[in-house]
């Protein structure tokens, strides 16, 4: 905790930390629509961005429009984001798909609350995990991150922007009401503490530029609109020029590249954190605020002699299977606590393939899963 380098400390909400992270990452555009429990992100952006050297803030008429404006800003060369919660996230799915197809980098923060529908506006849940992965229609690649505490809200927002820019894709950051509404002391990084990535812009004359051309990384360079590179952007399946096509070979090429550009960089994208996992018999796989309960429970289990460990998932999709497979060499039991009826546990079971026994703890009453609930299951072995 006591680091040498003196950093500025603030006592901030999770939602505030998201804003700090976004600004550090270079976000200059926020388009949004307020919704509990994400509204503080928008409110703080509304006061910060107009006074920021290059910041633009606009309140849109709904979440569909918010995401549209964010994509527009992204195409115009800005690092853009929006934040929302359950019902708004549902509305954003349409344009999330567009952002995938047009490969428009952007960050969408979803502060999860109880659902379905308007559900529990001020209570936490983790029910949007699979929606984040599969909510928009069609077979699409996407990156979904999560944050467990306030410091991580800042860090993961920076990483979300970095990944969005590096891979030209929308990145969803899932936090839950607890993390968003917890105030904690956090350290603001010094300049240079984080590598900041920005999209690669084309380096050839405009006439030779093909907006969706195959590249080594699978990520084509992207110029801002108005910079002399005139091209077509569409939500239709398109060829390398960006023109609509339904030719099977061109469609296949596009789809394969879009998936590959993310899948092949799993080592950069799949983030996890292990706590006392090296010799663990029982490993708790958790994310979001539940990972904090799990950390407490694992600590208590260790104190009473049970070899317990925690695998905290910071990336939810693409699912960090390698980090988990490593633990399966010695783990006999996997415990998956989630504030939903079992969404990540499906992924856990898929990767586990029957090797360890998987115990799920599910809570959908708008309450956090407590350390004692998790401890009880750990102690059962």
């Amino acid at each position: 905790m006591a680091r040498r380098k003196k950093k500025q400390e603030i006592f901030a909400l999770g939602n505030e930390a998201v804003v700090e992270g976004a600004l550090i990452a270079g976000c200059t555009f926020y388009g949004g629509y307020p919704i509990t429990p994400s509204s503080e992100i928008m409110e703080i952006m509304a006061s910060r961005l107009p006074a920021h050297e290059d910041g633009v803030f606009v309140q849109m008429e709904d979440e569909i429009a918010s995401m549209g404006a964010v994509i527009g800003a992204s195409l115009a060369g800005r690092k853009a984001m929006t934040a929302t919660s359950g019902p708004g996230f549902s509305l954003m799915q349409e344009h999330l798909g567009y952002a995938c197809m047009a490969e428009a980098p952007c960050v969408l923060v979803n502060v999860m609350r109880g659902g379905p529908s308007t559900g529990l506006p001020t209570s936490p849940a983790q029910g949007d995990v699979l929606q984040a992965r599969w909510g928009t229609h069609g077979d699409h690649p996407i990156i979904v991150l999560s944050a467990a505490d306030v410091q991580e809200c800042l860090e993961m927002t920076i990483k979300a922007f970095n990944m969005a820019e590096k891979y030209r894709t929308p990145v969803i950051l899932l936090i839950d009401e607890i993390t968003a509404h917890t105030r904690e002391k956090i350290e603001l990084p010094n300049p240079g503490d984080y590598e900041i990535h920005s999209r690669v812009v084309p380096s050839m004359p405009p006439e030779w530029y093909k907006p969706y051309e195959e590249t080594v990384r699978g990520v084509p360079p992207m110029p801002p609109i108005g910079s002399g590179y005139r091209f077509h952007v569409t939500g239709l399946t398109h060829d390398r020029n960006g023109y609509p096509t339904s030719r099977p070979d061109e469609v296949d090429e596009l789809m394969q590249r879009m998936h590959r550009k993310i899948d092949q960089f799993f080592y950069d994208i799949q983030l996890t954190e292990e706590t006392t996992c090296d010799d663990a018999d029982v490993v708790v796989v958790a994310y979001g605020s539940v990972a904090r309960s799990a950390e407490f429970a694992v600590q208590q289990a260790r104190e009473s002699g049970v070899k317990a460990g925690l695998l905290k998932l910071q990336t939810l999709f693409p699912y960090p299977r390698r980090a988990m497979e490593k633990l399966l060499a010695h783990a006999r039991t996997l415990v998956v606590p989630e504030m939903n009826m079992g969404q990540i546990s499906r992924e856990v079971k898929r990767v586990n393939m029957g090797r360890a026994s998987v115990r799920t703890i599910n809570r959908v009453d708008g309450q956090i899963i407590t350390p004692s609930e998790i401890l009880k299951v750990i102690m059962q072995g």
Partner: protein
Amino acid sequence: MKQPMELQRFEIRFSGLGGQGIITLGKVMGAGLALGHGYNVTQTQSYGPEARGGSSRCDLVVSSGRISFPKAESLDLLVALSQEACNAYYPYLKPGGVLVIESDIVKQPPTNHYLGLPFTQLAKDKVGIVQAMNTVVLGALTHLLPFTVQRVMRKSMEETLPAKIRAVNVKAFNLGHREAKKHFGESPEVWGVAPEE
């Protein structure tokens, strides 16, 4: 400055009615403990319709080490500024935990082991502004808690509050501190031992 007291997990709940300044109290104290005193602190609160007019709640978890679970579950200190809040949250008080009440409002404390002051009346009579009640409480708690330093907390409070209301709040803070010293005596023994056992 003396070495800060080692805390493992100290849980505080402020509770009462909407409009009593409960959330501000929690935020100011949380910021003071986190930034001024250097502890790790998590602050959570009740949200939504509950927070408008009805009951209001704000929790702090204070620790020298990393705080995993951010919510308060078993309280070391419960501050109840309404009878309903006192009834609702008293069961969460740890054995040996301390109950602080607004003695004019909480007429039927669930136990006779409590510390009480007429915070509202004090604010009204001696500060002249009833809204400063929460700062009177903050002053009192700063005396009561063995790990808070009056000067540090006051300074932190001054930094958090807008300039316009700073002077009034310093007055209220000092009043609370004085009154607590007079009526509460020294910090309860149960907190005196560094909870390391």
